[in-house]
């Protein structure tokens, strides 16, 4: 397999490498370049040095957006991972231990499909659905379920709860995928370990914390990175669901939304690119930090 391999390698890789060089690498370089200009999106391009970044620093909406991204960054991974772990555990080993078999709760196959279902719906559809769920009048699903005497809740139209509503939808949509991911991980943990621990008198809760979580650590780490990236994005939901796109009064603005609106609504392409640069570095820093901080000795199975 040595003779004349280079024609194959070059032939096989030239298209993907070219695609990435233009669509990702060159595109990012251009984002960096445009971030130093006052370009509106049309016409002349003027370089203004780091003015965009100075402007960012003094922009209230920017800091609000950062705050909202951090809110999602902290809560989305924690809540999603905890729920997904608990359910994966229930589905796989929560049903007890009978006749020498550790098994999931009754009906675990059905649960698995149900939990995965939201994952199949496009974000556009999820956003439209939850627009109905959180409808601010009596025709909204939740308000419709509340007792008739209650005043309708505003949900997304309320500055205090807008981000919480977004968070709930993100969790609702994500949980299923992570249940499946963790289930796959748990499937590879030898049942002997559970048997042995159960014989030693371990309760479900002990099994969960002493066996499942440590052995799944690397999968949890991956989940954390993915969810963190989702928290940095969140564009689709915020763009579709929130009042005035990012409102009320900036109460649900996130970085990705700022990028989009500056670029395509406010004709401030240069400023949008500066935001893009910030988002780029934030995401990479987050990924690197997560992998570093959560690194720990892998447990031998």
């Amino acid at each position, binding site marked *: 397999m040595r003779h004349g391999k280079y024609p*194959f390698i070059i032939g096989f890789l030239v298209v993907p490498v070219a695609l990435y060089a233009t669509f*990702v690498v060159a595109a990012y370089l251009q*984002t960096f370049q445009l971030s130093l200009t006052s370009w509106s999106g049309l016409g002349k391009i003027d370089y203004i040095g780091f003015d965009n970044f100075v402007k960012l620093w003094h922009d209230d909406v920017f800091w609000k957006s950062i705050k909202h991204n951090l809110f999602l960054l902290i809560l989305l991974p924690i809540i999603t991972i905890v729920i997904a772990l608990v359910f994966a555990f229930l589905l796989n080993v929560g*049903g007890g231990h009978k006749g020498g078999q550790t098994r999931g709760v009754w009906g675990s196959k059905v649960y698995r499909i149900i939990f995965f279902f939201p994952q199949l719906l*496009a974000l556009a*559809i999820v956003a439209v659905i939850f627009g109905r769920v959180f409808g601010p009048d009596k*025709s909204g699903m939740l308000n419709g379920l509340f007792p008739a005497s209650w005043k309708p809740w505003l949900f997304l139209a309320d500055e205090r709860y807008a981000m919480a509503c977004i968070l709930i939808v993100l969790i609702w949509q994500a949980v299923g995928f992570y249940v499946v991911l963790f289930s796959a991980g748990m499937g590879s943990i030898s049942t002997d370990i559970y048997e042995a621990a159960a014989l030693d008198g371990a309760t479900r809760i002990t099994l969960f914390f002493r066996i499942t979580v440590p052995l799944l650590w690397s999968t949890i780490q991956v989940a954390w990175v993915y969810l963190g990236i989702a928290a940095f994005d969140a564009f689709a939901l915020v763009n579709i669901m929130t009042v005035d796109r990012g409102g009320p009064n900036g109460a649900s603005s996130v970085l990705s939304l700022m990028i989009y609106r500056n670029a395509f609504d406010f004709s401030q392409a240069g400023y949008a690119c500066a935001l893009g640069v910030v988002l780029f570095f934030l995401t990479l820093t987050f990924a690197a930090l997560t992998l570093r901080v959560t690194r720990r000795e892998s447990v031998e199975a």
Partner: protein
Amino acid sequence: MVVAASPRRKRVDDGVVTVGRSKAGTVVANAIGVIFSVLMLFPVYWVLNTAFKPADEVLALTPTFWPEHPTFANFTSAFKAPLFLQDMLNGLIVTVLAVAGALVVGFLAALAIARFSFYGRKAIILVVLAVQLVPFLALLIPLFLMLQTASLTNSLIGVSITYLVLILPYTVWTLRGFISGIPRELDEAALIDGCTRAQVFWRIILPLTGPGLVATSVYGFIQAWNEFIIINTLNSPAKQNLMAWLLQNQTTRGTAWGPLMAGAIITSIPVVVFFLLIQRNIATGLTAGAVKG
């Protein structure tokens, strides 16, 4: 879903072990499962409920849990809505082009990475993985500019290429795994028997990667079909897909929730069908993956 399926056994209390597992605990576990399932399903159920209700029931002040006069009117009105069929066709074209392209390009790239060692191989793997981390939204402006220079904005081709780039990393990564799983001895045996290397790839590796190709194409289909930010930004409504159509109609139609929900259901059907397909295929893929001597 590679979960060890415990063989169905009769619930015999043969007194073996139930150490530390109380009956009450099992009840609680099941109760949590049921409650959570209801939470997960309720919004989906509400969509179905709304889609089959006539307009006056949708807007009724006391919503009912079941359409009293179920109707298909919302579905027919969605189909008759302007651009619905057009956008459905667009979505299909763009998705098929992107997935087919990604399969060809991705399979070849995965072959190179899995079967050859060469300078820069590690770097390519790293880039493939890193691309999935960077926020795509920040690339929208340069992307728009590039496609505009190539006169590929407001075109299905431009969007197809963009989607191809989007689903390629996953395709390469997954296929690489599948190809690495095929023993090299097979290649070598074929070479000794007089196959050229190209024949080895075409006649041995490609067929054995079949299940992997199915899995990646389904995933790619779901991604491309569900995408709407890019197509919405690059193209005008006549060249968008159903997701973008849905959003447009959400804002312009105001309270016409029935047809909108019916549209959402129609739009989701292909993905749900493909999900059911992938489930079966992953199962056969796993068993077929074992190469018999």
